[in-house]
């Protein structure tokens, strides 16, 4: 059922309730609590919201698009109404240098879990079409992750909330203002008694200023913060060791030896780009022979870090305390008595300890921030012992504002709500009803609050339970400021005027304080920085907007003195019985905040390659024991809570570990009900790990959609490996293949790509970059299930060897641009042709869709428009498209073009200036996004170009060399440190 139908069905209810609401609304809005009691209100809520969600479990693309289109049409708005914000974008005035059709870039930032992710927003005529990394930003250095890029789709998402709502019914901003002013004046009288503010992780200095001003005005009011995936254990650990909560900052570029205890340093999250960048710097230095890059990982389930590791130990969650304690003892840090290790564990700990000793001051021991504070504290002490503090690890006071109740802010709030001490609750930009631990019963407590206000991008579960809902601006259309993970402030400027009648979080906060929409958002932000910058304000402001960040605004990482060395690990037995459940943020939709983002929904999860849903991940041994296969329905029970999901077997997972991902199973929104809601299992005392869970088969079979059904490499050499010790004397992996044909002539420039598998961490940033750059359509769950996903670039995941403890690797596969391309031979109409500069072109206009090219393609990188994937898009989604890239028609084949539009752009520029295309001038979208610089692109005829230098390395090889297609995309083999690590 589409939302159109849903809306039309709920029309009658709206009318009666609406009339009633207007009547009441006009007179006494403060008697809203009466509404709660009435059956009609409850019926209204039920009628209105749950039915908006498509009823079908498997949302298909067509219904998604219909729904998107419908919601837009109902709003009576089109994406075309979006115009440039004059203050941010001088385009309206047609300034000097502005040309129609020429992209302009604006530096700004979007947030991920509260932290700024710096971006360059590429806009055409005021329409943002692509987000690129900000090369000069100290935290990201030009790289960008999948979440950040997909924020663009979040901006255009037609399912966003578009108008204020009062008890579920569309209201107006003037009614909102009346309501807030009246409530504010009441609060003024009582000093804010009973007023509470709940936000997500808060890094914005302006928001902090506004909140502290509000708290000063209303001393009885209180601010709380709730972030589903938080750092509370890390803060507890630093409090143990240093006496106060601190954020840690890892310098992975200096860490020649890293020992990670289930710490996904390279995994998805706000720190991924920064840490991956650092790690790849170190890795590249090691490739050049400058120092080592050794990574030891102990983890219960494969992570990106574990797959990148040279020595990966599979350890059950319960073993970590023993492992950490043993390592501590081995390095001379007192950790109390410990139980014995298995032979494998002993070897791993011993090797790790030896390497750590050998690289004192250039090493790092890290413990996952979800693990117990004691373990993390012990790791800090080990680092101190090794002299790593200040070298590879330093600290700052928490980058995000620390709420008065500390890390247990939400619990304190719920307690007060239950105690009836909260009369007004404003929830800004977070969805606690969906994401709070289930044993808090947040929704229940919320019902006891007299006036509940929610502001957010979507009408989510929390909005449904609040009286007021205020739609917020997306960060790409608002003025604000944010801090990145390193603390650097970015002034967020809008790339476009708001599409709908939505307000910024600052204005909403001003409104809550009783002030009307008088001051502009920009002024609110300026006001924050005026005192600091004083006379240099204009220059600083200008440079902050131009650069995308405020230089030098990051706090200096420091190493505080250790105040406590007595860390008690508790019972370091490490033999938990039964199954242990790990609850992790989802690799593609994170904590659920991206559940309405179709790019991220369709992005295959790095390791399982599942998309459009989550699964209960189990080990091969457990599945074999219980005779489960992929897709078997199971009920996961932890205490009183239970969820039903489908089994997915993950080779390399610890035997009795079960993993679930957060963010799915929500009722509202366009993405419908996909997967199950793992938040149901979360408890305040067990947010990430629950021991003693039970799994029982439900007998039903569920459809789990994956883009890669088979991961076992089966003895093939798709991903090749070399030993670092042999690197110096390595024979080139590439061999000269015989051919009857003369070598193809190549002109200069002639394009080629090199992908370094030693650097690739499989993070998917390239996939989303490609999707965004090349207008790649999303096809929905059903079509992905049929193998019809459209990604031009995919990241293959392979494992080799024993499924219980396999070697794993990633391999990004774009089009190979073969010099002897079988597709070109197969095409009957000359649609697949070779260009003089070495590109394997696909001429969409000429293609008639025989699909011979794809049948003949040994790499299967071609994608076919099985249906019309583009015409039905919502207008706003059409506005998002890159005007430089053709939108493909039904029935044509498409594939990676090496971003030909970028090549042509550079060619035109070079031609105008009468010169050759310079090295590094053409950067493909995937290359630009990659946080580890695994992808290099350039002129292969130029011996000095980066790509030629990489291709000249001995570990350069062609995928499926034996087919003799002579691909222009080649790979650099992974480098193993096995020999070096086994001393």
């Amino acid at each position, binding site marked *: 059922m589409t939302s159109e139908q849903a809306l039309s069905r709920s029309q009658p209810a709206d009318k009666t309730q609406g009339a009633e609401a207007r009547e009441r609304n006009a007179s006494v809005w403060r008697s809203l609590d009466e509404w709660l009691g009435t059956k009609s209100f409850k019926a209204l809520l039920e009628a209105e919201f749950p039915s908006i969600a498509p009823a079908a479990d498997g949302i298909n693309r067509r219904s998604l698009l219909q729904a998107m289109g419908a919601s837009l049409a109902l709003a009576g708005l089109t994406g075309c109404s979006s115009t440039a914000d004059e203050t941010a974008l001088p385009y309206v005035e047609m300034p000097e240098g502005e040309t129609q059709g020429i992209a302009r870039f604006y530096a700004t930032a979007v947030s991920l879990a509260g932290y700024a992710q710096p971006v360059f927003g590429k806009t055409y005529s005021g329409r943002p079409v692509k987000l690129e990394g900000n090369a000069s930003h100290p935290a990201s250095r030009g790289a960008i992750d999948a979440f950040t890029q997909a924020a663009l789709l979040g901006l255009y998402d037609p399912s966003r909330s578009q108008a204020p709502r009062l008890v579920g019914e569309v209201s107006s901003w003037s009614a909102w203002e009346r309501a807030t002013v009246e409530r504010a004046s009441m609060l003024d009288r009582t000093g804010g008694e009973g007023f509470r503010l709940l936000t997500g992780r808060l890094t914005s200095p302006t928001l902090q200023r506004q909140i502290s001003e509000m708290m000063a005005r209303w001393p009885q009011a209180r601010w709380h913060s709730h972030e589903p995936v938080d750092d509370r254990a890390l803060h507890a650990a630093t409090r143990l060791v240093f006496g106060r909560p601190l954020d840690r900052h890892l310098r992975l570029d200096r860490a020649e030896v890293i020992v990670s205890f289930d710490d996904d340093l390279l995994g998805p999250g706000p720190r991924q780009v920064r840490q991956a960048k650092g790690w790849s710097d170190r890795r590249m230095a090691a490739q050049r022979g400058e120092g080592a890059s050794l990574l030891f990982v102990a983890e219960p389930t494969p992570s990106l870090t574990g797959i990148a590791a040279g020595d990966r130990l599979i350890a059950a969650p319960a073993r970590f305390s023993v492992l950490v304690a043993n390592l501590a003892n081995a390095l001379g840090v007192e950790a109390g008595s410990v139980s014995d290790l298995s032979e494998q564990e002993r070897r791993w700990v011993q090797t790790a300890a030896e390497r750590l000793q050998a690289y004192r001051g250039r090493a790092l021991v890290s413990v996952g921030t979800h693990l117990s504070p004691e373990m993390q504290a012990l790791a800090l002490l080990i680092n101190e012992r090794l002299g790593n503090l200040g070298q590879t690890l330093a600290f700052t006071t928490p980058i995000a504002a620390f709420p008065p109740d500390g890390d247990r802010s939400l619990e304190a709030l719920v307690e007060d709500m239950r105690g009836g001490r909260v009369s007004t609750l404003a929830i800004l930009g977070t969805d606690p009803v969906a994401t709070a631990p289930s044993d808090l019963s947040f929704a229940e407590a919320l019902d006891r609050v007299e006036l509940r206000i929610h502001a957010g991008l979507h009408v989510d579960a929390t909005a449904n339970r609040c009286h007021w809902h205020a739609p917020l601006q997306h960060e790409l259309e608002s003025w604000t400021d944010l801090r990145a993970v390193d603390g650097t402030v970015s002034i967020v400027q809008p790339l476009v005027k708001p599409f709908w009648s939505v307000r910024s979080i600052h204005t909403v906060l001003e409104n809550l304080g009783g002030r009307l929409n008088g001051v502009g958002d920009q002024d609110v932000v300026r006001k924050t920085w005026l005192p600091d910058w004083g006379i240099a304000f204009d220059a600083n402001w200008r440079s902050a907007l131009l650069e995308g960040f405020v230089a030098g605004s990051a706090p200096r990482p420091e190493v505080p003195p250790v105040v406590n060395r007595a860390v008690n690990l508790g019972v370091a037995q490490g033999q938990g019985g039964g199954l242990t459940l790990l609850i992790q943020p989802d690799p593609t939709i994170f904590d659920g905040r991206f559940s309405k983002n179709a790019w991220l929904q369709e992005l295959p999860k790095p390791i399982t390659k599942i998309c459009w849903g989550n699964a209960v991940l189990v080990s091969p041994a457990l599945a074999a024991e219980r005779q489960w296969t992929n897709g078997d329905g199971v009920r996961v029970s932890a205490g009183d809570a239970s969820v039903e999901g489908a089994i997915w077997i993950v080779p390399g997972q610890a035997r009795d570990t079960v993993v679930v991902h957060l963010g799915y199973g929500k009722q509202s929104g366009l993405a419908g009900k996909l997967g199950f809601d793992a938040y149901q299992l979360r408890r305040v005392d067990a947010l990430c790990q629950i021991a003693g869970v039970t799994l029982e088969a439900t007998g039903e079979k569920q459809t789990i959609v994956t883009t890669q059904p088979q991961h076992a490499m089966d003895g093939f050499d798709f991903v090749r490996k070399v030993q670092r010790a042999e690197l110096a004397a390595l024979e080139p992996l590439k061999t000269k293949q015989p051919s009857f044909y003369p070598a193809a002539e190549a002109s200069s420039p002639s394009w080629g790509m090199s992908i370094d598998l030693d650097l690739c961490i499989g993070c998917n940033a390239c996939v989303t970059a490609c999707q965004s750059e090349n207008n790649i359509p999303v096809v929905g769950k059903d079509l992905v299930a049929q193998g019809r996903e459209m990604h031009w670039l*995919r990241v293959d995941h392979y494992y080799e060897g024993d499924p219980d403890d396999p070697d794993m690797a990633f391999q990004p596969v774009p089009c190979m641009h073969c010099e002897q391309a079988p597709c070109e031979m197969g095409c009957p109409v000359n649609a697949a042709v070779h260009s003089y500069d070495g590109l394997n072109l696909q001429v969409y206009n000429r293609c008639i869709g025989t699909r*011979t090219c794809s049948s003949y393609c040994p790499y299967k990188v071609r994608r076919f428009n*099985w249906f019309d994937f583009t015409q039905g898009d919502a207008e706003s989604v059409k506005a998002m498209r890159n005007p430089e890239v053709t939108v493909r028609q039904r029935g044509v084949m498409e594939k990676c073009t090496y971003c030909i539009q970028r090549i042509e752009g550079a060619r035109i520029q070079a031609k105008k200036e009468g010169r050759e295309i310079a090295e590094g001038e053409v950067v493909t979208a995937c290359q630009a996004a990659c946080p580890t610089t695994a992808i290099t692109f350039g002129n292969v005829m130029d011996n000095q170009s980066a790509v030629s230098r990489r291709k000249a390395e001995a570990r350069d090889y062609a995928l499926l060399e034996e087919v003799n297609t002579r691909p222009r995309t080649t790979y650099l083999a992974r480098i193993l440190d096995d020999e070096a690590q086994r001393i």
Partner: protein
Amino acid sequence: MSEAVDHPGSQRRAEGSRVTRQIMRIPTRYPGKWVWDLCFLICLCFLVLFLVSVVILFRNGVGVWGNTIPVNWGLAISNYIFFVGIGHAGTLISAMLLLLNEHWRNALNRFAEAMTLVAVICAGLYPILHLGRFWRFYWMAPYPNTMDLWPQFKSPLTWDFFAVLTYLIVSFLFWYIGLVPDLATMRDRAKKRGGQVFYGVLALGWRGSARHWARWNQSYRITAAIAVPLVVSVHSEISLLFAAGPIPGWTSTVFPPYFVLGAAFSGFAVVSMIAVVLRFAFRLEEIVTDRHLDLLGQLLLACGMMTAFGYVAEIFDALYAGEKQDLQTLFDRFTGENAWSYWGAVILNFLPLQLLWWKRMRIFPVTLFLIGLSVTVGMWLERYMLLVTTLYRDYLVSSYGSYAPSFWEWSLFIGMIGGVFLLPFLLFIRFFPAISAFEIKESQFEDQGERQGD
């Protein structure tokens, strides 16, 4: 003419007119009309199903089928090869045996040719239906255009286009030229004005003069001479659709002969089935004699054994080369998720066939029909197997997929068999002499002459 029965010539004439009567009574005074009407009605329903499937396909796109990446081609292409394949028997029987002066062919050639024609039409439709942008199908043809664009002549699909088109034209010409003298007979025997005009126009003014016969003989034999190499070339070419792709399981030099023999094999199987059915339906035991069944059985057996050799050669190839990818494909065929198509093909094409070593089995219509049916299904499975088991798991493990034809693929196929293959064939046996009367008479005359000459 009854007074002249003793005279050998008049006896021949009497016999000849009996043959003519026997054959011509089918279109003129159709025996068992209600059976035909029922069949026609059923086939019309299939035609509707076919048309609905086509409309659904054209409205929505190829996505309504089960095709995916990596199995880009599915039922459409395997059916295309299947239909071209069964078409081959018609040409082989008619043209090749005509040139070899094998008289026994005359009882079989007409309906075999008609079968060829409808099969090639079916085959020709599939590549167009399977196009992503079917409305641009003519881009496969070399036609003058302002952009000076030509088809890409290296592509096997371009050759396919020419091959099928040539084959269609040549088989039509051959069928039609062969039909002309009998159309004149029909014209002469037609009772109603409509029939007279219809057959009269089609008979092109045939009067049976010696000059007509001489011209006819020339053109018929020349067309036959053109058609014979086509039998080999068309299916060799179609095999290149697979063999030219650098995909394990396809790149094999054994494919052209393997495909041609397979085509003849499946064709003879279909011809056997039709012969048995027509013989039974119209009591044509005198014309389609036991000897014909025997010969068809022998041909079937010979082609079948050669096809079986093809299977062995394919396995040997893969094992001898020992390439990991080739072996992988071979084992996928033996044990993979589509192993049923491999074993189905091997069993249906090989085992029942062995009964044909006994003459009693060859001349027994029921066994011949059942074996023909088994081979037809088996050869269909073989085409399916060659396509799907190759594509669903090719080189990269990561792009392994699977394929199952969707409802609309099956409906199109079934609709096509009933509505595009059987329906015109029904019309053909209803309105045209399904067996060449004059050629039978000619061969009887010649045979007797030879006998008398002894």
